């Protein structure tokens, strides 16, 4: 709230403070819109036929039968509103213009519909969709503008194919990360079946970025049908998914087996991080023998994970955000994300109300992301 700005923001302001327009801002989570018809031309047979079959289905937000089934908006009663909760970005030109308007210099692209890739039961279809999306993303987006960087999708239903995709794009200059979809995922990302993906990502020098979305499914932790409201489901879907997967990846030893693998998480805010660090360390005292491969306490590994800020918590005391970040030693691992153009996106101005030190501000808005993605200030891979 702007009322907070008067109270909390003032001390951090000074005449020497770099305006947002002059600060390097790397946006670690932005969404392109991939429709079935768009992907059909990049999709292997016979699945291209299936995509053309649904190309004319009226588009509802993240909710196309046979593509991104079961949108979170399909469960609750709908009332009219002027909240534009279904914004989409269809072209690189639109994306560049909209991001420039909020002072963003570099952006890492994620999909819309393929946020729900793991819920598709047909493994071959899911893998074909991921391949089509990756080819489309590079051809139509990341190769068209320097500011647009790609996270290629790893299909959890077919880890071997996902690993081949990572190898395929390992040297593509505009690809800077591997996107690990989490919504409806089973088993969680700590399972050894995914090791080929981590091996390929580590070899390629590409970080993996976990991203979830709200779905309701029998799969833990998405069995959220007990909640009445979207408020409850949305508040917990992303955070529970990220917490479950991070706990999984630490407790099965992914973080040990792949010591050079860089891991990031998106769209879960930051306030769960101190909880996970402290809770796992507490359990470790009693149950170390279950995780004998860990040579440090669990929080040591959790704290190495990069965390995107969106949707940043909005406490009444904005300095609480700084305190939360310090609780997980996150000055070098916390990264700005907008989630543009989604309904809960964070304008840089919002995060800039947090009374960070000058160093923290510079790192969070851009420099930490450069380190995670291994890129320079122009977005070139180092």
């Amino acid at each position, binding site marked *: *709230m*702007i*009322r907070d700005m008067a109270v909390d923001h003032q001390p951090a302001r000074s005449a020497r403070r770099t305006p947002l327009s002059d600060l390097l801002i790397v946006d670690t989570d932005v969404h392109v819109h991939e429709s079935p018809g768009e992907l059909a031309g990049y999709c292997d047979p016979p699945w291209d036929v299936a995509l053309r079959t649904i190309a004319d289905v009226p588009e509802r937000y993240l909710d196309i039968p046979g593509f991104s089934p079961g949108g979170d908006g399909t469960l609750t009663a709908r*009332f*009219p*509103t*002027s*909240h*534009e*909760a279904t914004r989409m970005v269809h072209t690189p030109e639109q994306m560049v213009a909209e991001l420039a308007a909020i002072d963003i210099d570099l952006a890492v692209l994620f999909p819309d519909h393929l946020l729900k890739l793991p819920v598709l039961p047909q493994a071959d279809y899911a893998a074909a969709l991921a391949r089509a999306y990756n080819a489309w993303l590079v051809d139509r987006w990341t190769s068209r503008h320097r500011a647009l960087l790609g996270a290629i999708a790893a299909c959890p239903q077919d880890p071997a194919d996902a690993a081949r995709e990572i190898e395929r794009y390992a040297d593509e200059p505009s690809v800077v990360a591997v996107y690990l979809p989490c919504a409806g995922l089973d088993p969680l990302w700590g399972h050894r079946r995914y090791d080929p993906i981590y091996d390929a990502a580590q070899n390629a020098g590409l970080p993996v970025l976990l991203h979830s979305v709200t779905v309701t499914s029998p799969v833990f932790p998405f069995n959220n049908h007990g909640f009445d409201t979207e408020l409850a489901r949305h508040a917990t879907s992303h955070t529970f998914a990220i917490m479950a997967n991070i706990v999984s990846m630490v407790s099965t030893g992914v973080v040990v087996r792949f010591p050079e693998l860089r891991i990031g998480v998106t769209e879960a805010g930051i306030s769960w991080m101190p909880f996970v660090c402290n809770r796992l360390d507490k359990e470790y005292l009693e149950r170390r023998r279950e995780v004998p491969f860990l040579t440090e306490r669990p929080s040591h590994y959790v704290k190495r994970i990069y965390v995107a800020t969106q949707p940043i918590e909005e406490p009444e005391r904005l300095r609480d955000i700084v305190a939360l970040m310090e609780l997980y030693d996150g000055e070098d691992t916390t990264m700005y994300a907008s989630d543009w153009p989604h*309904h*809960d*996106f*964070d*304008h840089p*101005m*919002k995060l800039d109300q947090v009374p960070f030190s000058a160093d923290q501000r510079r790192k969070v808005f851009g420099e930490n992301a450069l380190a995670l993605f291994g890129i320079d200030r122009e977005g070139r891979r180092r």
Partner: protein
Amino acid sequence: VTEVVVGRVADFPAGTHRVVDVEGRRIGIFHIGGRLYGLPNRCAHQGGPLCEGRRTTGTLVADAGSGWRPRWAMDGEVIACPWHGLEYHVPTGRCLAFPEIRLRRYEVTVRGEDVVVRLGAPSR
């Protein structure tokens, strides 16, 4: 205090709203229930273009009188910010989620066929 003509009455049909530029300010003019209201086109949350929301609607409220079950209320009087959906009651400028937030309201009157916005001290 400055008074500025922002259009003709016919430019603001009942049940509609639009944003006008008035001496460097962006003001949403709403025609609701036979009256005109003016609100700043800036949401108190992240500065979103509040009055560019496509249409005013009602909203859901609940209290002891409704047995704590939702009922549709304030039909046509609520604008939600297109960015994040924060709701405001247009006639009062009150934010529904955070009642301590109240937008400034510009006095809008009809003079002949002209619609006139009065700039000056905030009306509370």
